[in-house]
């Protein structure tokens, strides 16, 4: 964002989500919205994260629990199919992993620097049910 002088911005501790007037925003997908440069959507907070979730679609049943519970709207789901994670806004809280009901889980937490392909290749096996 350009650093403007004191007389060059609108008054108030206020930022506009869009430049100009918007229409039917509820019916428009995030990726199709013309967010302004001041919208928090265009700012990455990925560097807040220490651990990251990795999504393994092989076990996902598209139950949408992660989408419902994510406090940062960082689970990307389209037509009720889990697509992946918005890694610009995910803070790595691990709630999605906690609520994932599959066995093994379709989402697991790893250190931020972990390699996704390596982790997917060594994904844990199904836990045997014990009686």
């Amino acid at each position: 964002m350009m650093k403007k002088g004191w007389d060059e911005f609108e008054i108030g501790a206020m930022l506009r989500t869009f430049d100009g007037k918007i229409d039917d925003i509820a019916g428009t997908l995030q990726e199709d919205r013309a967010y302004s440069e001041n919208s928090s959507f265009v700012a990455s907070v990925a560097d807040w994260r220490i651990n990251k979730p990795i999504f393994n679609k092989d076990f996902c049943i598209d139950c949408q629990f992660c989408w419902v519970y994510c406090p940062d709207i960082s689970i990307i789901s389209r037509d009720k199919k889990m697509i992946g994670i918005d890694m610009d806004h995910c803070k790595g809280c691990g709630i999605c992993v906690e609520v994932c009901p599959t066995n093994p889980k379709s989402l697991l937490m790893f250190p931020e620097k972990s390699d996704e392909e390596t982790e997917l290749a060594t994904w844990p096996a199904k836990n045997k049910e014990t009686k």
Partner: protein
Amino acid sequence: MAFDKMELQKIEVWDGNFAAAQALRQCQIDVVAAYPITPSTPIVEGYAKFLSDNYIEGEFVMVESEHAAMSGCVGAAAAGGRVATATSSQGFALMVEVLYQASGMRLPIVLNVVNRALAAPLNVNGDHSDMYLGRDSGWIQLDAFAPQEAYDLNFIAFKVAEDHDIRLPAMVHQDGFMTSHTAQGVYTLTDDEAYGFVGEYKPMNDMLDFEHPVTHGVQTEEDWHFEHKARQHNDLMTKVFPKIQAAFDAFEKLSGRKYNIVEKYDMNDADVCVVCMGTSVETAREVATEMREKGIKAGVVGLRVIRPFPFFEIAEALKDVKAIAALDRSSPNGAPGMLFNEIAGALFNTDKRALLSGYVYGLGGRDLTKAHLVSLYTELQANVDAGKVTTQLQQFIGVRGPKLAFL
């Protein structure tokens, strides 16, 4: 309009609280979020009564503290409503954190502050401790000396605060009990005149404008915060006084009552003068007239606008005077009083060097009597005759025990 209008007499007998409540009714406040505290409670109580009697179309929000009251006001103002509340003393102190939010967010809330001492020791009576606590908060501060002015200044406050060039919150101060609970004749405006003066509320950047979504109350760090604060200070320093003057002029046209940023009394040829605020102004005026009969050319300067501070208007008002007393009704707790410092600052780079002395008086509702002011004016005249301040620069008036003087 779905609410009823009220027929008022040309002159009503109102105390300062009821006058302020009537002004809030006539301005048709959308939201009052309030928590009761002596002596300001009857203002918000009055609004609630008018609301329940269908004289207002609005919302009264009962909250659990003054911090929540001002927070509710901030939310309602950001949403796009005309918003007001009232408080005093400890309640004001609890609001302080949110006062800075309101001004930084540029929300034109009007806060009626019925001035009362700050504990400890706990005290419900009038002094200016709470008023002084708010003076760096970025609000406009207007001071009423009597119930009539508490009524009138509410209209002025909305008119100035809500102007899209200003968008700053405003406080209307009145002295606890001496103004708030003393009934006097108050000249009224009709409901239509009053509402016509403040006009319909014009929202700006409101959250309920769904076609232009905004985020209010954003965070900025070292890269942006300074620019926001600089802008707010700039607008207080350069834009507010012209708008206040315009509002005073328009109000005089409407009501015949003339207000000034600095209220001068007998200052044309005054040798000695007292600068003060609140109900003390009226007492000082009475004594000044009596001093003239005794041959002392006395005058009074009352501050109508405290923030922004009328730096040049004060210097102008005091330019020909020889001795000045700055009366502070708040304990400076280890410094000269606020008025002493501000006046010294306003005069320091001018050619005229008047003799300036400071007085601390009236804490916790202690009376400032006419006898106090007679000796004060006499002391000022003695300073003029001696050509120097004959006392220490800071004295206490009306406190028991050995005489207190410092500096």
